[in-house]
């Protein structure tokens, strides 16, 4: 188990390094930051001075070397726009996104387990048929369209909910709902499938022959086995929420990491782009490692391999 885990962490680290190199060079393709940060009529000397000051004049490999050197010292650079260390800007935005994602993922996962298990209990029953149509629709709904339509309906027409911004409970309803819909739809289908398999397994027969109560047969004996494939997909979906966050945060004006990434790319704020991608990558890879641990905890057969 320990060996397995350290192997996973090592390969994750390699992935982060690879990603990081890619981001550094890709960011430089977006153009010269000087064009954005200086007035259009800025004289050549001023431009030169700006580039000189931030090191944009140096050959790209020198910039990269400097960047790596700084990184080793824990310095992720300085935000041009915010005029603060990039890492501070990112660490301020990250918890906002994480709490949004955590709430959304928790709702999606528990909702899916309950709906999927009930659907699997009587395959092709009324509940199963309805949940299948609804979950398929949910899994294939485009979130940007849903978000805009929801704003039109609930904020503009009905005036029930705020259009954007962060605040108390009403501000959370739309962004969280939009983030929940796709993973929920997908997970319901996965839970349903794996629970049908689990409920028709032989060990479920044994449990029933033991006189175990039906509730316990479903939610203890079958679910613990049925959860295994669900966890894999849920982990995948948790990572995908980072994608969803870019759209949802932009539309609803949430000051999270998704919005920060978009803004910093548009503003050619290289240090912030790099820092936010690095932190996001670390978060996603951590989620993957957590998934592996959860998998091994739930399935002793993996633990003993």
């Amino acid at each position, binding site marked *: 188990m320990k060996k397995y885990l350290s192997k996973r962490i090592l390969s994750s680290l390699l992935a982060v390094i690879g990603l990081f190199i890619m981001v550094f060079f890709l960011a430089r393709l977006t153009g010269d930051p000087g064009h954005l940060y200086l007035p259009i009529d800025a004289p050549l000397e001023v431009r030169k001075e700006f580039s000189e000051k931030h090191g944009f004049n140096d050959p790209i490999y020198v910039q990269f070397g400097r960047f790596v050197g700084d990184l080793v010292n824990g310095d992720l650079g300085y935000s041009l726009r915010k005029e603060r260390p990039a890492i501070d800007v990112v660490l301020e935005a990250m918890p906002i996104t994480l709490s949004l994602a955590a709430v959304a993922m928790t709702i999606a996962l528990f909702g899916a387990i309950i709906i999927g298990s009930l659907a699997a209990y009587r395959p092709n029953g009324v509940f199963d048929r309805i949940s299948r149509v609804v979950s398929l629709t949910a899994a294939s709904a485009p979130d940007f369209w849903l978000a805009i339509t929801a704003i039109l309906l609930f904020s503009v027409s009905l005036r029930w909910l705020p259009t954007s911004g962060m605040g108390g409970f009403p501000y959370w309803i739309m962004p969280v709902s939009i983030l929940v819909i796709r993973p929920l739809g997908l997970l319901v289908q996965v839970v349903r499938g794996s629970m049908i398999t689990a409920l028709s397994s032989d060990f479920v027969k*044994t449990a029933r022959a*033991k006189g*175990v109560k039906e509730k316990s047969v479903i939610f203890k004996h079958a679910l613990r086995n049925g959860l295994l494939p669900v966890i894999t997909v849920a982990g995948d979906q948790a990572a995908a929420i980072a994608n969803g966050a870019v759209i949802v945060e932009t539309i609803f004006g949430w000051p999270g990491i998704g919005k920060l990434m978009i803004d910093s790319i548009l503003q050619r704020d290289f240090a912030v782009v790099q820092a936010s991608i690095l932190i996001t990558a670390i978060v996603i890879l951590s989620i993957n490692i957590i998934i592996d641990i959860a998998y091994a905890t739930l399935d002793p057969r993996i633990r003993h391999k």
Partner: protein
Amino acid sequence: MNKLKDTLLKVSNLAVSFDTVDGPIDAVQGINFELKKGQTLAIIGESGSGKSVTASVIMGILSCPPGRIKSGEVFLNNQDILKLSIEKRRKLMGNKIAIIFQDTLAHLNPVFNVGSQIAECFQVHKNLNKKESWNKAIALLERVNIPNARTRAKDFPHQFSGGQRQRVMIAMALALEPDIIIADEPTTALDVTIQAKILDLLAELRDERKMGLILITHDLGVAAETADNVVVLKNGKIVESGTLKTVFTTPKHPYTKQLMSSIPGRTIKSKKNKLNNNSDPILEVKNLTKHYDTIACDDVNFKLYANEILGVVGESGSGKTTVSNLILRLINPSSGNVFYHGKNIFDFDKKELFSFRRRVQVVFQDPFASLNPTMNVYNLISEPWIIHSNFLDKSLYAKRVSELLISVGLDPDDASRYPHQFSGGQRQRIAIARALALNPEIIICDEAVSALDVSIQAQIINLLSDLRDKFSLSYIFIAHDLPVVRDLVDRVIVMKSGKIVEQGFVEDIFNHPNHPYTQDLLKASPSVFNLINR
């Protein structure tokens, strides 16, 4: 009055059908039987005879739909349990009546440790707390002779051997001291020596707790060893019932007679004269050794002569399959050689290996897994000719497939059908036809009849015997079942822990076994004819 009190379970006029796309199929058609205190009732029948369906009905675990109980009553202590509410029924299950299944790896929950699965019985029915029920679970594991029960209770099903898992299953069934235990093929997946121990344990517990035991089996030897009364099922109907001795010694129904006559190992024919050991062996195994983490096969030596059937017998883990894989050159040995017509197969170049592959064929145990479900019989049998392209002209494929199907007792029209349309025995015939396709010299049968019912087993064995004479074949016949080997083979090799402990002519080994292990094997393998006269 006393007689009535002793009846634990009475099944009367039970009929069950399954709804399928082709209409309802009657699985059980009006069966009646009774179980008395302290008795063992064996329900004998082949796959599809309705014996497990009957057990499912009694245990309330029949899937409905597609299953449907059309009529009948099941009286437990003079109460028809089929009429009880779900909740009242649930309180009986595991409590008054419990079941032991065959495939313990699938029937124990893989994600819970065995202790908690046994302890659950006490939590469900007796409202005991975790600690009390855990201690009781450990006591039960000790009762069924699991060593180090206290630590092993925390282990998961996959960490136990098949025999131990069956003990865990028995401990679970025993937990609440039920009046009745149903054992559904409890030893089918186990080695003979372990089978004997499990059957002894069940009989001992039955006497100790005055339980009634229903033993469902297709193995007549197992029935003979444990049963007081016997019910013979065929196609969902009881064809014969009575005491063990009456049914086994004076069977009346033709089906029962056929079953009794297909029991392997009634007679040993002397085969010493038939063999011509003066000629050179076609296959000679010398000092063959294979190490994995453990020693799988250790200094194995034997010869195979032309037109000979050599039996290799041993329990799981004895190295039989490793030897077969080495001879087939599917794996390489750690040391030692295999000479085929005097030439070491491990020195073969590509061309020699290719022609060796044609001359040595194999038939595997599980005909459900070894035939590609997406290929029809014609494609399955003709595939070797596509690989060995100069063996047969393409225009002759259809004719040859028909000939082969006829020689294994199938219909030429079967060529266009797919494996799932055949029964287990028929599929094994297809596998044999495929092995014959390239006119081999040696066929290795790796537990080729172990998965089949007795009467089908007898048919396949007769077929193999006929084919040997017809095509002058040699077989290496690997089995864990001694009686089967006795009927078919000329010489036997007995293996244990990777080593050959004894080898010789079949009558010598069976009549005068020298090695203690061979003696144990013979003792453990229930012989129907000795047992019913006990």
